[in-house]
């Protein structure tokens, strides 16, 4: 398994991480090496086995639909890098 620089850039774009050309080269080599180690998994017979998403037999845990305490606006915004008029501030999403 060998990841090309284009594939690494594609993954980085999906993951929203800016990479330098040196990063691309290093990650291509390292990720390819790690994926090689995983190749043996393909040969394991898993016919008829259900995938495990989670170790416990719990599903669809519900709670009553009642209002509970939550953070106040000021608390929620206290760590915001940029806030304005009670909102998180970001650059334009649409150009």
């Amino acid at each position: 398994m060998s990841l090309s620089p284009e594939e690494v850039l594609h993954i980085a774009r999906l993951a929203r991480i800016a990479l330098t050309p040196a990063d691309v080269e290093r990650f291509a080599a390292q990720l390819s090496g790690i994926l090689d180690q995983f190749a043996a998994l393909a040969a394991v017979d898993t016919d008829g086995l259900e995938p495990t998403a989670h170790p416990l037999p719990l599903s669809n845990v519900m709670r009553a639909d009642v209002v509970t305490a939550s953070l106040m606006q000021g608390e929620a915004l206290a760590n915001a890098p940029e806030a304005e008029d009670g909102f998180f501030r970001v650059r334009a999403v649409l150009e």
Partner: protein
Amino acid sequence: MSDLWKLTAHEAHEKLRAKEFTSVELTESVLERVRAVEPKVHAYITVTAELALEQAREADAKYASSSATPLTGIPLAIKDLIVTKGVRTTAGSKILENFVPPYNSHVYETLRRAGAVMVGKANMDEFAMGSSTEHSAYGPSHNPWNLDLVPGGSSGGSAAAVSAGEALGALGSDTGGSIRQPASLCGNVGFDPTYGRVSRYGIIAFGSSLDQVGPIGRDVEDVATLLDCISGHDPRDSTSNPEPVADLRHYLGRDIKGMRIGVPKEYFISGMEPGVTARIEEALKLFEELGCTVDRELSLPSTEHALAVYYIIAPSEASANLARYDGVKYGYSDHSGGSMWANMEQTRAGGFGEEVKRRIMLGTYALSAGYYDAYYLKAQKVRTLINNEFAAAFQKYDVIVTPTSPTVAFPLGAKLNDPYAMYLNDIYTLPSSVAGLPAISLPCGLSEGLPVGLQIIGNFFDEPRVVQAAHAFEQALGWSNRVARI
């Protein structure tokens, strides 16, 4: 009075009750020790000395009014991914360097209700991704047994604090070995509970189907006491188990005659240090002397695949969990770019360290179109195979005993540039993590002057039997190197 920091939590509690000293005196002794050794050990990212003394004064009031419980007034280190209201919580990452949580985690609330004292927030590999603390954005911790060596990780700061005397006990978190491996390398007891025993509310997420908080301590009794405090159902974590849990302290001091121990062949691999092998063989003999049956014929053939399964599933879950770090709501933000997307990509490039980026990319790849079936889905199916093998083993055995780590502590820098060699540190701790089973690591002797850890794995929610076996073993071994000489 000067060496109070050397006590176990249960010894300290007895003496606090007997009014031999106060929690303020105990806490001051620990803080004095922190001032003396922290420049060499670097167990903490943040030391909360004033808060600790304030909490100690509250604890002394509880002792005065006879409302103290076993953890009241006991100074503890709290891993820095456990959110603490008003106290900076970084998860070892630059991306959270200024993050001051507006709420408390469930586990910290339970410790505070018990009157425990927080000495500080313990160092860790960034977002718990690592086995040495070398991936901390705040610099590595050093192993108190030998400062040139790693303390293990990711909860390496928690383990180093306990063995350096900078706390009497600690909380860590375990996703693939992050409590047990550092406990093993630092000569402590560390317990990764059954998935769902402890609420993950307020734990900065890494791999949500694997993460569990658990204790690190100087002996099995302390670890049982800490786990009792933080266990139990919490409706704020939908994966928290709703069944009531047994009081583990009740299982201390019981004999283990007739206990059936399975020893999986697959855990005795080449690459295991001879000193580690020797200590484990002696441990198995000791279990036989204690009246256990030790069966070396147990086979868990899918063990060899646990590493691949883990390093596909955990990074996949991490890639989703860490999508929240966008530089908008909290944390480090680089908004020098022209667009929202450019800012997000720059924020994540500048805020995350090397290993975190590597794992996010690995997980993103494993979940991406065209590769999902071959990697993520396949790993989930092999996870079922691993679970089934453990389930069959627990039909025949009460507990499974293995080494915790193939080696003792290794030098700082030795594996830093070879990610896969670093991943191999977790080879013995990953399988039970993948299955969600409880597993403890406790010291079973020394190899070349460094601690060796023994791992005891139990069936789902069978922490009682794990504690019973671990405590009986510890008492028979007579381990007394509870604080390292620095």
